[in-house]
C-alpha cells in the first residue's frame, strides 16, 4: 500500500510537545523528529512520541546528525523508529515547506518510505481559542510518485488526526498556563547536558 491512503495518527503528548516547542521560540523557526511505527494492519502510521530538535541554524548538519544518532539509539531499543519530521517556519504568514524541511524529510524517507512531514499551521494555531476545531494545527505532507513533498488536503478525508480527540483542549490549557517554558530541545541539551531532550517530566 503506498502512502496514498495512509492515515497518520499522532499521540497527544507528541503533538503537544511539538506545538509547545514552537511557542517557546516564537521568533525562530523550529523543528522536531516524529517517532513511532506502522500500525499492525499497515493502514496507518502511529506517531507515538516526538523530540524537539533546534531553534537556531536548522540548516546545519553536524548537530542534526548527532541528534539523529542519539534518537535512533534510544528509540530503537523501544521498538520505535523515526517516522517523520516536524517544522515550524519563522514567520507567521509563511506557509511554504522550505528546502531544509524537504531535505530532512528526504533523508528520513530513505529509511521509512511512509514518512510524513508536518508543518505548523499558524492560522489554525491562532484560531485554537475558538475551541471548535479538533483537527491538529499542522499541515501534512507526504512524498508523491515524482519524489516531491505534496500537501495533503485536509478537506474531506482526515488523514492526519490526533489519537486523543481532546488533544486541542489540553493544548489550549497548557498554552494558557505557559507550559511551553518547560520544553527542552536538543539545542538546550547541547548547551547544558543536564537538560533532558526526552522531556520526561513535561506532562507530570
Amino acid at each position: 500500500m503506498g502512502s496514498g491512503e495512509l492515515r497518520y495518527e499522532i499521540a497527544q503528548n507528541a503533538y503537544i510537545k511539538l506545538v509547545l516547542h514552537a511557542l517557546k521560540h516564537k521568533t525562530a523557526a523550529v523543528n522536531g523528529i516524529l517517532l513511532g511505527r506502522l500500525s499492525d494492519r499497515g493502514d496507518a502510521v502511529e506517531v507515538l512520541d516526538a523530540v524537539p530538535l533546534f531553534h537556531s541554524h536548522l540548516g546545519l548538519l553536524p548537530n542534526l546528525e548527532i541528534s539523529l544518532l542519539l534518537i535512533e539509539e534510544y528509540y530503537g531499543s523501544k521498538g520505535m523508529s523515526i517516522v517523520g519530521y516536524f517544522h515550524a517556519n519563522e514567520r507567521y504568514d509563511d506557509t511554504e515547506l522550505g528546502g531544509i524541511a524537504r531535505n530532512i524529510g528526504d533523508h528520513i524517507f530513505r529509511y521509512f518510505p511512509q514518512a510524513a512531514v508536518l508543518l505548523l499551521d499558524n492560522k489554525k494555531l491562532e484560531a485554537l481559542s475558538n475551541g471548535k476545531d479538533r483537527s491538529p494545527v499542522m499541515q501534512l505532507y507526504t512524498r508523491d510518485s515524482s519524489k516531491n513533498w505534496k500537501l495533503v488536503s485536509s478537506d474531506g478525508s482526515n488523514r492526519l488526526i490526533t489519537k486523543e480527540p481532546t488533544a486541542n483542549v489540553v493544548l489550549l490549557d497548557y498554552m494558557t498556563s505557559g507550559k511551553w517554558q518547560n520544553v527542552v530541545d536538543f539545542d538546550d541539551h547541547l548547551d547544558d547536558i543536564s537538560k533532558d531532550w526526552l522531556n520526561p517530566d513535561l506532562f507530570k
Partner: protein
Amino acid sequence: MVTKSEEDQLNRLEAQVDNAGGGAWEYLCLVRKLKVRRPDKVLKHGLAILNDSKKRSALGTEEWTLCEQVAVAAMDCQSLDVAKDCIKVLRKRFPDSKRVGKLEGMLLEAKGLWAEAEKAYSSFLEDNPFDQVIHKRRVALAKAQGNITTAIECLNKYLDTFMADHDAWRELAEIYISLQMYKQAAFCYEELILSQPTNPLHHLAYADVLYTIGGLENLQAAKKYYASTINLTGGKNRRALFGVCLCTSAIGQLSKGRNKEDKDSPELQLLAVAALEKDYKQRAPGKLPLLTSALKSLRVSS
C-alpha cells in the same frame, strides 16, 4: 551574545521579580544592557512601574528610557495600544526627536503597514544616510514581508559601508543558512573570524558550515576549526567535541583506500570522546550508555 553567567543572573532576577520579590528596575536595566528579547516580562513589569506614579517619578529622567523600552516590548507582544500611548508620551516630551521617529516607524511595521513604514524610513535616510539603526530596520522590514532577497541585498549594501558591524554579519550568515546558501554563509563567518579571532562561536559556526558543505578539504578544515573552538573554550564546548568526532568519522569514510599519509591521527577523536564521556558521567549519567554506543558507531576503523 550573552555569557552563561549573565544569563543565569538574568534568570535569577526574572524569577525574583515574577514572585513579587522586587528588583524590577534592576531586571529591566539588565535586559537593556544585555540586549536580550524578553518582551512579555518587560511589558508586564515595565508597565507596572509606569502606571504607578510614585515609582515613575522616582525614576527621574530614566522614565523616558523605560517608556521607550516598554514601547518596543509592547510592539513585540502586539499590545499596540500600549505602544501607541508610550510613543505619544515620548513624542510630547521630545517633539523633534529622530529616536522617537524610529519608534513611530516600528509601530507602522508592527501594524503591518509596510509601505508607510518604508516611506518613513526612506525619508529618515535622506536626512541622515548614515543612520545604522534605520538601515537595519529596513532589512527587518524586508524580512518580515518575506522578501528575503531584498533583505539580503539591503544587508550586503549596509555591510559595504559598515563592515565592522558584527551583528549584521551574523544576521546575514543566518539568513544564508536558512536558505541553504552555505558558501555565502561561510564567507560571513570568515569575516567574523578575521575581525574577532578569539570569539569561539564564530569558529564553531564556521566549522558547522564547512561540515555541511562537505568534501574532504572542507571536513579537514572543519576539524581544525572545531579544534580551535575547543582550544578557545578550554574543552567545555560540547558541540565542538561532537564536531571533532563527526569530522574524524566522515574523513575516515572519504579517505578509505587512500594512502595512510592522508589519514588523520585518531588522537584528537579519542580525546574528544573521553572528554564527552567524562562530561556526561558527571552531569547526565542517565544518558551515558546512549552516548557511548552512539559514539561507537562513529569510531573510524583503521
